[in-house]
Structure formats: structure tokens, C-alpha cells
């Protein structure tokens, strides 16, 4: 986030989109007066229930839809500008793929659209397939892929051009928790490498884990925006965490608080999340060599994806070894 001169990669001012019917009568006002600013290196979450205007907003950012009113600048240029698109990666809410193309052919197709030569395409595709864990099934038509595998190939195609700005619409939908976790790790790693990510999701936990700032939409308008800390911190209460306290010590704490006219409202043992339990079981099973028919575990973050891998943190260190994602998986579990 820092060191990028505070560049604004996405700027929307008063953007409105009204869909018209065949007779040009206004039919649906999908987005109304949206102002948005996403800075370089930021992971920005766009939240909202179905039909709140998230996808329409994203399609306007990508130049697929023309705003009825308002202005949009992506990486400082018009969304339809071809030079802008060269630096943008997009994963739609569902992976719309050519069913008859194999995984490798799919990535090759999108690579060609970026004018990558044959060699560059081959290298990048090898790395991406390894990264998303589809190397073993690269020659199967994507029509035969499971939904999760299609999301993985969709994510890989969004990265083939090493984009500066990554727009991800529901990146973890249809994925098992392991895959979802890997994608989250990948997003975090890319953000550490200086990429800007616009994340659109219903999964509030994902957004909370990943995003620096969020905007919540409803009825085509932004109802709230800010950092997660600003929006979520309850200043009216305090949490202290300590090893399990014996009843006597607990009584003493109550006494201290009573002297300040404060009553203890809740005493409980923290619970680990179901996600962390699930991930731990899968990691253990993999360590024991139990087979599965799904996608592979995934590999290191592709080297060609720009930025400095030294900033990768846990994922970056893990990338050095063959057991990349499981190492990061276990490490992240220990942090929970």
C-alpha cells in the first residue's frame, strides 16, 4: 500500500447505470451515483446482496458496459482503452469458458489475446497450471472440470498477463475450503507484491480476512465504506485474552473491575473456526498420502507475477519449496 505514491487505480465519480428495453425505455436502474476510489496495492472489498449492483459496477470498470452517467478511470485511463486492459486481470462471477478447449488451450487462448509469444505463453501457462493445481488435468476439456476446477482455471487466466489491477468477482464461490484458503493466500501474496485487488464477494469472512477497505452496496448505491477496522471495531467493549483462568483468579478480576464500577458481561473460552479445523484435517490427510479425484494441491505463486517475492511473507517463503501451499496452510493454521 505504501511506496506507490498513493496512485489511484480505480476512480468512479457519480457512476449510474440504467438498463433500457428494446424500445429504449428505462427498465432497471442497477447502479446509482457510485463514487469509488481504490488505491494502488490495496485489497478493496465490494460487498452487497444479490442484485445490489456489484457485478454491473465491475462490468463498467471493465468497459463491458457503458455508464449512463458519471466517469470512470482505470489505471488513469478510460476502461475501454486497450492499454488499460493490458494491465487488468478479471475473474467473472462464473467461469465462462469454451467447454471444448482443454485447460492449457484455454490459457493459451487468453495469452494470445495479450500478444504473448509462444514461448512466453508456454512458460507462464506451466507456472500458472502448477500454481492453481491443474497441471495434471491440463489436457482435459474444461467442460469436464468441476466447478472448483473451473474457478481455478478462471483465476489462472486472470493472471496470465501479470496484471497490475486484479478484479475478482466471487473468486472462492464453488470452491472447497482448501481451495478457497489457497486463493485467499494468493490474493494476500499478490497484494504484498504491490498488486491492486478489487474483490467482490458474498462471503463476508473472506472479505474481512483480506480487505484493507470495503464498500457495502444495496439497491445500486454504496451504503457504507471504510477500512474494516473503522467499520467493525466496537469501541464500547474490550476483550482481554489469557490462558485459562482458575475460578479464584476470575473472581479476583471481577473484584478489580467492580472497584471501577464495571461488571464483566461475558466470560467464555475462545473457539477455533470450523475452517481452520477443516484445513487441518485435510493437511494431515495429505501428509499421510491419501488420494483424491479433485484438483491438485497447487504450487508456488508464479514467478512472473510482478512485484518482489521477498514481500510474500509466509506464502513467499513457502514458495521456495515444493510443498509450498501445504507449508503455508499449516503455518496459517498455527496462527489461528
Amino acid at each position, binding site marked *: 500500500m505504501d511506496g506507490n505514491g498513493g496512485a489511484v487505480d480505480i476512480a468512479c465519480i457519480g457512476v449510474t447505470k440504467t*438498463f433500457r428495453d428494446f424500445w429504449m425505455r428505462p*427498465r*432497471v436502474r*442497477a447502479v446509482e451515483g457510485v463514487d469509488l476510489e481504490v488505491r494502488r496495492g490495496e485489497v478493496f472489498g465490494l460487498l452487497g446482496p444479490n*442484485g445490489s449492483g456489484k457485478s*454491473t459496477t465491475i462490468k463498467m470498470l*471493465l*468497459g*463491458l*458496459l*457503458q455508464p449512463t452517467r458519471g466517469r470512470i478511470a482505470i489505471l488513469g485511463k478510460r476502461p475501454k482503452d*486497450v*492499454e488499460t*486492459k*493490458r494491465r487488468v486481470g*478479471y475473474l*467473472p462471477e462464473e467461469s*465462462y*469458458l*469454451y467447454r*471444448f*478447449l*482443454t485447460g492449457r*488451450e484455454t490459457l493459451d*487462448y*487468453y*495469452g*494470445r*489475446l*495479450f*500478444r*504473448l*509469444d*509462444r514461448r*512466453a*505463453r508456454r512458460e507462464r501457462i506451466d507456472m500458472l497450471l502448477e500454481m492453481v*493445481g491443474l*497441471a*495434471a488435468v491440463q*489436457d*482435459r*476439456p474444461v467442460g469436464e472440470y468441476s466447478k472448483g476446477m473451473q474457478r481455478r482455471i478462471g483465476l489462472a*487466466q486472470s493472471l496470465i*498477463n501479470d496484471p497490475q489491477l486484479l478484479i475478482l468477482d466471487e473468486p472462492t464461490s464453488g470452491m472447497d475450503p482448501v481451495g478457497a484458503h489457497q486463493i485467499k493466500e494468493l490474493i494476500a501474496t499478490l497484494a504484498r507484491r504491490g498488486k491492486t485487488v478489487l474483490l467482490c464477494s458474498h462471503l463476508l469472512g473472506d472479505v474481512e480476512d483480506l480487505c484493507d477497505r470495503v464498500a457495502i452496496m444495496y439497491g445500486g448505491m454504496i451504503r457504507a465504506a471504510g477500512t474494516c477496522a473503522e467499520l467493525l471495531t466496537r469501541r464500547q467493549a474490550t476483550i482481554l485474552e489469557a490462558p485459562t483462568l482458575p475460578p479464584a483468579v476470575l473472581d479476583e478480576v471481577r473484584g478489580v473491575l467492580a472497584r471501577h464500577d464495571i461488571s464483566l458481561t461475558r466470560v467464555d473460552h475462545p473457539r477455533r473456526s470450523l475452517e481452520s479445523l477443516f484445513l487441518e484435517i485435510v493437511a494431515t490427510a*495429505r501428509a*499421510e*498420502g491419501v488420494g*483424491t*479425484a*479433485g*484438483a*491438485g*494441491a*497447487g*504450487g508456488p505463486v508464479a514467478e512472473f507475477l510482478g512485484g518482489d517475492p521477498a514481500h510474500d511473507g509466509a506464502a513467499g517463503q513457502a514458495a521456495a519449496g*515444493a*510443498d509450498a*501451499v*501445504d*507449508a503455508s496452510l499449516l503455518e496459517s493454521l498455527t496462527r489461528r
Partner: protein
Amino acid sequence: MTELVTNLAPASTSSTRAAWRQPLPLAVTAAMIGAGGLWLAGRPLAATAIGGAAGLAVAFVAGLRLLRWALGGGNEVSGVAGAVVDEALGSRMPVIFMVLLAVGLPILPLVLDATERLEYRLQFFLTWSLSAAAFLLAMVTIVLACGSVCGDIDSQRIHMTLSKPVERWQYLLGKWLGIVLLDGVLLAIIGAGILLGARALGRLPTVDAADRRAVDEQVFTARSSVRPEHPEAAAFEAAIAAQVEQIRQDEPAAFAADPAGVGRRIRSERVLEWHTITADVVSSFLFTGLDRERLAADVIQLRLKPFADNVGVDRAEVRFALWLNGRPFPPIRDGRHEEFVLPSLMFHTIDLPASAIDSSGALRVTIANRNLVPPGETQPTNIAFSPGKGLEILYRSGSFTGNFLRGLLVGWAKLAMLAAAALAAASCLAFPTAVLASLMVYVSAVAKGFLANAIDIYTGTDGGQATLASMVRLRMGLLLERINRFEWWEAAKTLTSWAAEGFLALVPSFGTHDGITEVATGRLLPVTQAFGSAGILGIAYPVALVALGWALLERRDLVNVSGS
């Protein structure tokens, strides 16, 4: 830690292995074994047919691999084009098409009647196979073009492509290029099959020596045609002008309404009169531009379709005598000038010696009516020839193969035009409507002449060869006249016909840009004409249509609105 990647299938080395390719080597091997067996069993034609089908299939796969490789370079347009080819292969549609043709073509000679003249069998084979290939490819092109764009829009795959650095015109151009190249491969392979099939068929025994000569001189050839001029052109034109002038004076109102139409009518009457040979009039027809030095053969052909006036007599015979540049033909033998006796209403070809042409390259053909007097009549019946193809001189001026290739080029250009039209339709319509609109363009292009006549009959006007200005004047006059008379229904018919005429005016005529008839009848499709058609249909129309599609797509919101 552990081996994390789970193998679903054994790791494979080939990067391209769409499922459709797997059974092919097996099928080809089986076909080859079958062909070998038939050959040994003394059935060479059946063996050639099956071997030919297998060969076509192999050539098809090789051609497509080459195409995929050629489109593998890194470029937006070729990228989109490559995906169209992959998509088409994945959908198996061209494969089914190939199987249809691969099975149909080589079997065709087997089902042809062996007692029929080989000349006619060959012409039937060429016409049928080329027309079937053109029709099937046209359908493949329309469905592929509409399906590709509409499928992308419906499934929102277009979002993935257009969010990449691809302009919408590049997207459409890529689609067009992919379809046109795929058509090119299909056409080239099927063309090779037809060419080899025709050559194989040409080796079959002929009915008689004349049949063999006809096969060589009228089918496996490319002949230019010369239409006759009036030998006294100046006097002929003066007579027409005088008659027009007479009408201008006698019927000024009728003349003023459509002067060009009057001129056309008088001319066609006089030409018909000249082409009609009565019992006591000898008609001459002058063919010029027949440079003896440039002729590729010693023989030229007089092709004619005479008809006699005696109505009610089927295939009546006509009887006439010929002179070439004033000398009797055939030359007088034993003091007799031999007459020709031919069934009427059929095309006949009479071989003439090239030596009869004079040094200026002119040949004057004189025809005298020698018809017998029918029972109950006092005069022999007239002999007439339809102006145009009813009487012409043909001479060899090119090779069959060259002509065939030019025919394929024109066919390919038609597909290119059709692909662009279908893409333009798909840019603004849903799949079923886009297919229907494209079919409408196809049918209009194929039957343009017929439809124009139908519209004229419907509205009671004569479209003819009028200029645009006179056409507009005529129709405006007609409309006002009908409104004046309160003939509202007739006026409405005039208005609706304008829409139809406007649409028809925009559609090219596939009849004008033919290729199949020329190839099948051994007539030269000149290089200039072939490339002219290719330029108009394969470049000018596609440029305009892709631009139209782009204008439509550029303004289209590529989203299905879910809210209400």
C-alpha cells in the same frame, strides 16, 4: 512433506487431444483395409471410393492441424480466430459435415447410371457435388457464425474476451477470419475430393466415340464463348432507332413515361426477329475476336438450341444448312450440301474447323431453314434461337483444373460474405433470429433474380434493366397514381415492395457470381471475373458487414438484465 498433486489421469505429453480425434486413426485404418480388400476382390471403383473417403478424412485432419498451427501466433485477431476453429472442431459439426460429404461424394459415381452418356454423368457429378458442398458449407457457416457470437454473448464468455485488450471490431474480425479459414480448409479438401472424383469418373468407358470427345472437349476443358453480332450492325441499329422514333411520334405519352423501356422492347423484338429464321429468309450471325493464333485447338464449337414453331410436336426435328464465311459447311461432297437434322429444344454442339475463321478473327455463320412442310401446312415452320445462350461459338481457352480452382475461389468468397452477414446478424440478434436473418440473406442472394421478378409481378411494375433514377420515378408515379385512385391496398403493396426491393438491392446475387455452372459445363471462368467476384463478395461485402456488426456490437450492453 508429501506428494501433493493428485493424478486424475496418467500424465500425457500431447498438448492437443480433443476427444473427436481419437477414433479417426482406427476408422481410417479400417477403411484402408476395406479398400484393399475390395481392390483385390476386383471392385476397383468401390475401393477407390472408400480409399478416397479415408484420404479425405486424413487430409481434413492434416489441414485443420495446419490451420491451428498457423493461428497459433500471438495476436488478438488470430487468437479469436483460433478459438473459433477449436470451438467448431469441439462441437464436431464440421466433422459430421465432412463425414456426410466424404461418404456421399465417392459413392455418387457408383449410383450413376452406367448406360447414360459419360458426359452427362460427369456434368451431373460436378454440378451435384459442388452445389451440395456449397449448400452444406453455407449452412455450416451460418450456424457457426451465429452460434459462435450468440453463444459467447449468452454464456457471457464474451466478457472474458472483451475484458482483455481486444477491440470489438477485432473480436468480430477474428470470428470472421476463423470461420473463413475453416471454410477454406473444408472447401479445399472437398474440392480436391471432387476434382479427383471427376478425373476418376472420366476414365470410365464412354458410350461411344462422340461421348469421349464430348468429355474431353466439353467437360474437362474451359471454353470461352462468343455471342453473335449482326453482320450489318449499322443498318440494324438504324432500323431500331427509326422504329423508336416512329413510336415517339405516334405515341408520345407512352414514350415519355419510359423512353428507355421502349428502346429495350424494340431492340429485343428486332433481335428475336434476327434470331428467327423463316422459310424464305437466310440469317447470318457474325462472331468476332476469334484470333486463330491464340486458339488452343483446331476445332471450335457452335453451340445452339434451336426450336421450331410447330407447337404440339414433341422434340420436333429442325433441318437447316450452314455456311461458314460464305462457304458451305460441311463442304459440298458429291454435289450435295449436307443438312443438319437435330431435335429441337435441346442444346447441340457442332464442331467447326478453326481454319474457317478469316484472318481478322471473324466467322460469319449463315443458317438457312430447310424444314419440311408439316402435314396440313403450306409453309415449313420457322427455326429460332434464344438470343444469348441459344446460339454461340465456344473455343478452348483454359484448363479444367484452373477453371475448377477459380470456381472454388468464388465459392469461398460467397461463404466469406455469408459469414460476415451472419456475424452482423448475431451482433444484434439472438441465435434463432440471427440464423433466420442469415438464411434470408442466403436465400435472397441465391434467388435474387427470381425474387426481383416476383416483386415486379406482385406490384405490377417492370423492374427490368431500368436505371435507378427511372426506377424511382416509375415507382413514385405508380404510388401517387394508386393513391389518387384511392386504391389503398395497391398503394400499400407498392410501399411494402419498396422495402423488399431495398433489401434485395443490398444483397449480392450469387447467380451473377456463379462458378459451378461454368465448371460443370466446361466454360471459362475468366481470372478477372473470378477475382472480381472474390473481391466483391470476399472483401468488399465482408468489410461493410463486419463494420456494420461492429457498430451494432459497440452499442450493445452485453449483459442480461436480471432485475425488474
